[in-house]
């Protein structure tokens, strides 16, 4: 089951449809993030991983939703696999991230997860559990 899921071509039309459906909200949020990094401390993964910037909520949003919109949905499975790592492994969606401007970071991460899931890209805890640690 896993092989068919990971080898199937990406349905770009579906990705574009999903991106279009939330475009106004996501684009507004992306454009109003002033990259101040004040959200960093609100993420426990950032705090417990030597304050590595890749765990910052804003970094995760820019690298996932930001890139999806930048590429206008023209992405391949390799790209979605990268996003999978960002939005599942580097974020547990605990909703504790705080943005001084008011950007709804969890909504954006959840949206990126939705786009990945629409293409069958999501963590397979049962099969990969032994090979890859998610925590």
């Amino acid at each position, binding site marked *: 089951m896993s092989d068919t899921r990971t080898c199937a071509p990406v349905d770009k039309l579906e990705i574009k449809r999903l991106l279009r459906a939330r475009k106004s909200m996501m684009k507004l949020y992306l*454009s*109003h993030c*002033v*990259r101040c*990094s004040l959200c*960093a*401390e609100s993420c426990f993964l950032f705090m417990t991983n030597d304050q590595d910037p890749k765990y910052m909520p804003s970094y995760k949003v820019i690298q996932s939703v930001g890139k999806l919109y930048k590429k206008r949905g023209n992405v391949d499975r390799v790209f979605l696999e990268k996003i999978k790592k960002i939005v599942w492994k580097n974020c547990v969606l605990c909703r504790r991230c*705080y943005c001084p*401007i*008011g950007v709804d970071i969890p909504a954006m991460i959840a949206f990126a997860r939705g786009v990945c899931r629409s293409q069958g890209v999501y963590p397979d805890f049962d099969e990969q559990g032994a090979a890859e640690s998610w925590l």
Partner: protein
Amino acid sequence: MVDFVRGPMVWIAFGVFFVGLAWQGFRFFKLTRKKSLVHTQVWPQASSGRKKKTRWIEAFSAFLETAEKKYRASVFATHPIMIGVTVVFHVCLFVTPIFLLAHNSMLENSIGFGLPSLPEALGDFLTLLVLSCGLFFLLRRLFVRRVRAITGWSDWGAFGLTLAPFVSGFLAYHQWFDYRTVLFAHIVLGELMLISIPFTKLGHMIFFFFYRFFLAGEYSFGQGRRMW
């Protein structure tokens, strides 16, 4: 060219600024809707019976305790310097150009009405304060790893657009370099900043209030009666 930039272009810039902000506001309210009852969290109401009278000293100490807890959990406690600089920067960003003597005398000459003005020396000091805060942001963006990791071209653009009118204004006031050229640059850069506010990252000027006051959420100030 110079006459156009000093004359009609100023009004065009102000027009785009105000119409752009109004349009963004309209867009926000069109994109969001009123929170329905389903999404309304019902908090337990205080009992309707006779309330126990609390002494004001108890109420005040309870207030202080809550305020301290909130402070400790906020960005004010985690980044006191950054927040302090940000607040000073944003206050001066508004106060300086609006109440600057030179701007208000021009306004009075032009339409016969001007706002109250700050003393020249204070205006100069506030400009320096804005530039110093800008220097702090610049150093932060260049040398703090986590900020550098998320900085893109649009951030440098917003940074430049915001500070360029202040740099050129400071140079023009002190008449360093060729006064006419610097003044022309100051006017053009100020107009560019005004025009770009509603359509760029600088739009957080108005969207900060939309996001934090109107949208429902855990971190919203006030009621937050709208949702996407």
